[in-house]
């Protein structure tokens, strides 16, 4: 037996017996956060629906704590697995507390009457998601962020070992996204609850997940730890990005660069260039940036927004090659922008460059 808490073997999923994605083999340890990413309609939800048994699996096997999913009764599964779904429900006349209370379903008696212990668990779950003050509010009358937290509290007080969430951050603003994900992270690390979810925000996925699974076409395109999965080309392929770029280092996304004969040479260092690059990008003006050390923060952005970046190795004096290239562009560009360059021991030649460009500012 493996040490993994949750695993799938050659799982094939789809609708009505028609396979959509096949050979899904995933191993997840207890307390890990695993995120499915991939373009719209790639089948992330289909996979999640299959492992929560809303959809019939077409082939392969799923194991939870070394028990086969198909052999578990719904009742047994309900004490191991809780879900937060995308579909928006509109329950009638139910307070948030009523919603959370449904999480205790597997533990209450024949008529579902809550015991003092159930109440305590509900309190605890609501406290964990900062939703205690919502207790008596009508579920239909609260905001999306609050709703998502209440649904998470519902899942938590079901006392599962694994929680499955289908796009939990949709409809949430940035503050609530971060809040929700922090709660999930805390839960996974402190209580050892395994989390499997799908996210649209690849930048957030990269930051919260222990493992990333890229779903594309009829198979899993890539899977593994975020730093292995997230390289620029992989993301470009996965989402078929043809406009703009995704920078895996900080998970930032950029619109496409302006293309054409460079009109401006931007001289900058240590972040002074960033607002200038963005402004030129918005105005649609093609530009060249330099001379940037490859460890400069300006460099990361210039790389994706400028027509060309005149670069230099970190901590080295500016070489003749770079300097001459800068002079070449200085000559050709009608305009030069000096965004502000701190002159130091290694980059003193920048001072000379700025001096030479004086007439074009």
């Amino acid at each position: 037996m493996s040490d993994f808490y949750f695993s799938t073997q050659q799982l094939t999923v789809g609708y009505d017996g028609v396979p959509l994605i096949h050979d899904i083999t995933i191993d997840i340890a207890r307390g890990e956060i695993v995120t499915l990413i991939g373009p719209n309609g790639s089948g992330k939800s289909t996979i999640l629906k299959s492992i929560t048994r809303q959809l019939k699996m077409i082939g392969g096997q799923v194991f939870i704590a070394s028990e086969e999913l198909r052999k578990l009764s719904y009742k047994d599964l309900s004490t191991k697995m809780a879900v937060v779904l995308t579909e928006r429900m509109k329950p009638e006349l139910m307070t948030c507390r009523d919603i959370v209370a449904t999480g205790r379903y597997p533990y209450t008696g024949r008529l579902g009457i809550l015991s003092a212990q159930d109440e305590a668990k509900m309190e605890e779950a609501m406290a964990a998601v900062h939703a205690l003050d919502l207790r008596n509010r009508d579920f239909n009358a609260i905001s999306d962020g609050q709703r998502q937290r209440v649904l998470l509290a519902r899942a938590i007080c079901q006392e599962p070992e694994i929680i499955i969430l289908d796009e939990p951050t949709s409809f949430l603003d940035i503050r609530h996204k971060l809040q929700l994900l922090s709660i999930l992270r805390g839960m996974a690390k402190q209580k050892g609850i395994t989390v499997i979810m799908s996210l649209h925000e690849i930048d957030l996925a990269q930051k919260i997940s222990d493992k990333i699974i890229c779903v594309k076409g009829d198979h899993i395109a890539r899977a593994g730890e975020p730093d292995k999965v997230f390289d620029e080309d992989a993301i470009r392929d996965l989402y078929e990005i043809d406009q703009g770029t995704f920078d895996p280092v900080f998970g930032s996304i950029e619109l496409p660069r302006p293309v054409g004969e460079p009109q401006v040479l931007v001289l900058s260092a240590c972040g002074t260039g960033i607002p200038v690059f963005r402004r030129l990008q918005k105005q649609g003006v093609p530009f060249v940036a330099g001379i940037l050390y490859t460890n400069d923060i300006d460099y990361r952005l210039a790389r994706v927004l400028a027509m060309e970046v005149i670069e230099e190795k970190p901590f080295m004096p500016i070489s003749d090659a770079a300097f001459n290239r800068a002079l070449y562009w200085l000559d050709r560009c009608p305009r030069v922008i000096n965004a502000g360059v701190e002159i130091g021991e290694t980059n003193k030649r920048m001072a000379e460059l700025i001096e030479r460009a004086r007439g074009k500012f």
Partner: protein
Amino acid sequence: MPNQTEQGARSAFLNENLRRRARYQLVFLLLVAALVVITVLNINTGSVAIPVGEIFRILLGQAKDSAQYSIIWKIRLPRILMAALLGGGLSLSGFLLQTFFGNPIAGPFVLGISSGAKMVVALTMIYALHFFSHVSSWALIVAAFAGSLMSVGFILLLSRKLKHMAILLVAGIMIGYICSAVTDFVVTFAEDADIINLRGWSLGSFSGMSWDNVAVAAVVVGITAAVIFTMAKPIGAYQLGEAYAQSMGVNIKAFRVALIVVSSLLSATVTAFAGPISFVGIAVPHLVKRALNTSKPLIVIPAVFLGGAVFCMGCDLIARIAFAPTELNISTVTSVFGAPVVIAMMLRRQGGRAA
């Protein structure tokens, strides 16, 4: 400091809990009081007026040989009990169908279930009478049940294709029309002797109930209602939608079948005895849930049953006395009171959506 606000929230919550419990008790108390008052009024009023003191004496089994005794015991009492039982059953059936379809306007009448029952009952009454001199109430219930299931089955088939609630309701109404057309067709070509019973029945009425009828209805409605009460827990889970219910451990397929069977059985029983009755199944659950301000099945189920009983007894009283000695159809009265409730409900929902 945060601890203090925490405690404040906790005590506010406990207060709210108490307030809610008090509200439930008040609603139940009012419903029971209304039940008693309407029962007395119902026994009291009619072409023969009987003083209240006399009523209690008769109910206690005294003055057995008076004409009033037989009026109460043979005519009024069975009718009252029947109105209560069938009204409760009909409302409960409506509540279940609303839960099932996740739609507050679903109900046995709207979805064509009553009409389906009516059609099969009519066919049974007309054709069975050729072979048997008497059709038992059990046979009528079976016929009505078959008709109900037929309509429900058809709607379920459609509901797989039609996700939109308005269209589903239109489909139900159309099924209702088709069944009514078939019924009318059969009645048109039937011999007069065959349809004497049918005519009064198909318009809906609680009149002419025998103690045998009451016994059969009590057994069927009583058992079904008790079963439904024990299903309160999964019904509560189902209110969050099927996917959530399943994740809580409900066996959805079995539950769905059970829900459809019991709700059809209830509306079939009602139709078999009293004919199709409109709007009760929608209006009563809605009013009761509003009054209780909750949709918790454990509380709503008994309250809806009581509410349905009170509503139908009240409507029956009005049907009897409004234009006495002429009696109105029960549906005439339930529509007058029920339809405005439904309209108000739709306006409210529409308003809620716009906001």
